[in-house]
């Protein structure tokens, strides 16, 4: 018996040793250090950073560009999940339940649609960013502006007009995200018993009420998961903004986000201390978002 316990302990240790070590060295320790670096004036090249306490944090509160970035993240946090989920739910419903022909398996060709809608998801974000840079070109050589100009419309500065650039970024993010959630919601719909739809239809339910009375309530859990994923995506966005937009988050900082400001302060201004302080703020925003979404989903469960 003792031998058994010893064997069990040995097994646990052996299985945990490597993953835990790697994780502590490469993930946990950098995060801890980041909190320390945030309280120094380190510029990245010197050997001994000077401790400055909370100076970086007090500076941060009057940094207009950073707060502009925070506002953009906040806008994305609301708009990205909202648009993506609405569009994806709509398509998932059409593809699985709302087909006009045949039974309840959805529209004809739904399999093909699902495959195509998913395409953007398998492309690297950096690739998507470069691709849309070209699509959005401001002259006749741009995929979108070419036809517009042929029609005599003035070209749209998708990335060069500060009032439009943010929406272009949002558009690309939605473009890339929708496919995954169509598939996710489709899987959710597939697990709803067919009888429920059949029964409702026999009761004379239209497509709208099928959606709102059956689909949405039964998918609610999945929608919540989607919301959390998309929320984290909105808070973490970097590559799209950094690679696609003019002046990395411009023009005139109209598309910048927290991650871009962290990267800019660290790797173009060499203010690693300050950048880490921004990172700490971002950390609290992320954790704050997670706490709020958990609170909301918990309340949801109690009411349910």
């Amino acid at each position, binding site marked *: 018996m003792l031998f058994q316990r010893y064997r069990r302990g040995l097994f646990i240790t052996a299985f945990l040793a490597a993953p835990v070590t790697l994780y502590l060295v490469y993930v946990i320790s950098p*995060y801890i*250090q980041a909190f320390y670096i945030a309280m120094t004036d380190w510029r990245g090249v010197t050997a001994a950073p000077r401790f400055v306490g909370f100076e970086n944090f007090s500076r941060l509160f009057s940094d207009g560009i950073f707060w502009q970035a925070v506002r953009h993240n906040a806008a994305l946090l609301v708009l990205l999940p909202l648009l993506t989920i609405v569009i994806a739910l709509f398509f998932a419903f059409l593809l699985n339940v709302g087909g006009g022909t045949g039974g309840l398996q959805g529209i004809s060709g739904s399999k093909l649609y699902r495959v195509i809608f998913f395409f953007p998801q398998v492309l690297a974000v950096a690739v998507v960013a470069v691709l849309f840079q070209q699509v959005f070109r401001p002259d006749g050589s741009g995929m979108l502006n070419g036809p517009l100009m042929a029609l005599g419309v003035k070209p749209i500065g998708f990335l060069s007009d500060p009032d439009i650039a943010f929406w272009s970024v949002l558009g690309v993010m939605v473009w890339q995200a929708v496919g995954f959630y169509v598939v996710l919601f489709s899987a959710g719909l597939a697990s709803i018993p067919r009888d429920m739809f059949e029964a409702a239809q026999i009761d004379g339910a239209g497509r709208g009420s099928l959606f709102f009375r059956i689909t949405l309530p039964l998918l609610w859990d999945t929608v919540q998961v989607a919301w959390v994923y998309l929320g984290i995506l909105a808070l973490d966005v970097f590559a799209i903004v950094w690679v696609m937009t003019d002046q990395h988050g411009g023009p005139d900082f109209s598309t910048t986000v927290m991650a871009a400001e962290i990267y800019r302060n660290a790797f173009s201004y060499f203010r690693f201390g300050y950048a880490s302080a921004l990172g700490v703020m971002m950390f609290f925003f992320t954790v704050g978002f997670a706490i709020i979404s958990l609170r909301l989903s918990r309340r949801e469960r109690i009411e349910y």
Partner: protein
Amino acid sequence: MTDTPQNITRRQLLRGAALVPVAGALAACATPASKAPASSSAAPVATSAANPFGVAADKPLEVWIFDGGFGTAYAKDIHQPLFKTKYPQAQIKIESTKEITKVLQPRFAGGNPPDVIDNSGANAMDFGALAQDGQLHDLTPLLDAPSWDDPNVKVRDLLDPAVIEIGTYDGTFSVLGYVNYIFGIWYSQKAFRDNGWQPPKTWDEFLKLCETIKKSGKMAPFTYAGKFPQYLYEPLLTLAAKIGGPEVLVNIDNLEDGAWTSEPMKQSAAAWAEIGAKYLMEGTAGLDHVQTQTAQNKYKVAMLPAGSWLENEQKTTTPADFEYGMFPLPDFTGSDKMPYGTLHTSPGENFIVPAKGANPQGGMEYLRAMLSKKAAGDFSELVRTVSVVKGAGEGRQLSPGAASASKAVTAAGANTVTYRWQTWYAQLKDEAIAATGELMTGGLTPDKYLERLQKKADEIKGDSSIKKFKR
């Protein structure tokens, strides 16, 4: 489905965050440990007139070239072979990148930078930060060393004095500009000839010319690299200096109160805003330098502001009979402080020798080889530009653009201006880039534009964490 995993775990995930500090105690602290001083300071070889820095003949040398308008062929085909003639045993590794900062900044942070860097381009490293941290090798010995070609001539005497002024950080000469950049408004001499247009001498003539070109319907009058508005604040600042004298720019560099909102700056900003409102090529705001320059090569636009690297940068898309030409900024009023022909010149392609590299002696020797008549002359010819080495271009075949620029420099004589705030204060540069784009597209009035830049300059002045420079 009573308690789905995602519901428990998402909640636990947050509680987990609270554990992080505890785990920290376990993790080894790997914050930049203070390192032993680099071994490079020990002079390995005795110095002599032929070997003024004491270069070890067999020590490898790592050189990083900014792969921009001049390409990298000059390093591989001109400088490296010349260095090799003297040090055949030395292993030379020439690397190149367009993203100097991204690629090399971590090497500095890690204490193993390469031996020579051409720290240039839009993504160059911040010289201020490097200087502040003692990462730049003192290049004074290079200035005092005998030149490569003639032991009786010091390197210092070969260089334009502006090179030494601009390359000096904290009283130490540590950055060697290799190319003399000459800024102006570029056009096609052929297009101007064919259409009977004349390079303007006064601002009124400039506006009239824009109007004529616009009405002709043949091409747009003016454009600039809209994605990189630093291409436009360059002529804006130069025009202001022409109106109000070089101190306009000195005050801006020194972060003086009200430097940005001075009267000459207001006049210049208003003048350029008018160009932005009336005469820009359609879509300018979203195009980069290559796209606008290519448009000019296709005769879609007549004029754009750029530097003397332009001709080489465009060599593949320029029609053979295009004939680049450059004219200086026109007189704004009859009472400009500086005469017609005043130019903005600035040493560029900034070479540095990192202080903590493995072979700084070799690095300086490499720069000395670059400053030889042969190397500098071959370079000028290959990349169609003007180097900082006096007389290196003599007797060389210059291309139309380079010839035009050289002529302008000679005509300008001592009437050259320059500014340095953009390399000293990266944040101010980013703000100026953002605001200038807005000025040209009408998002900011000239007054609001200058107020905004003044505010940023004041902010930087008041920020104790940012190192200040003076000229």
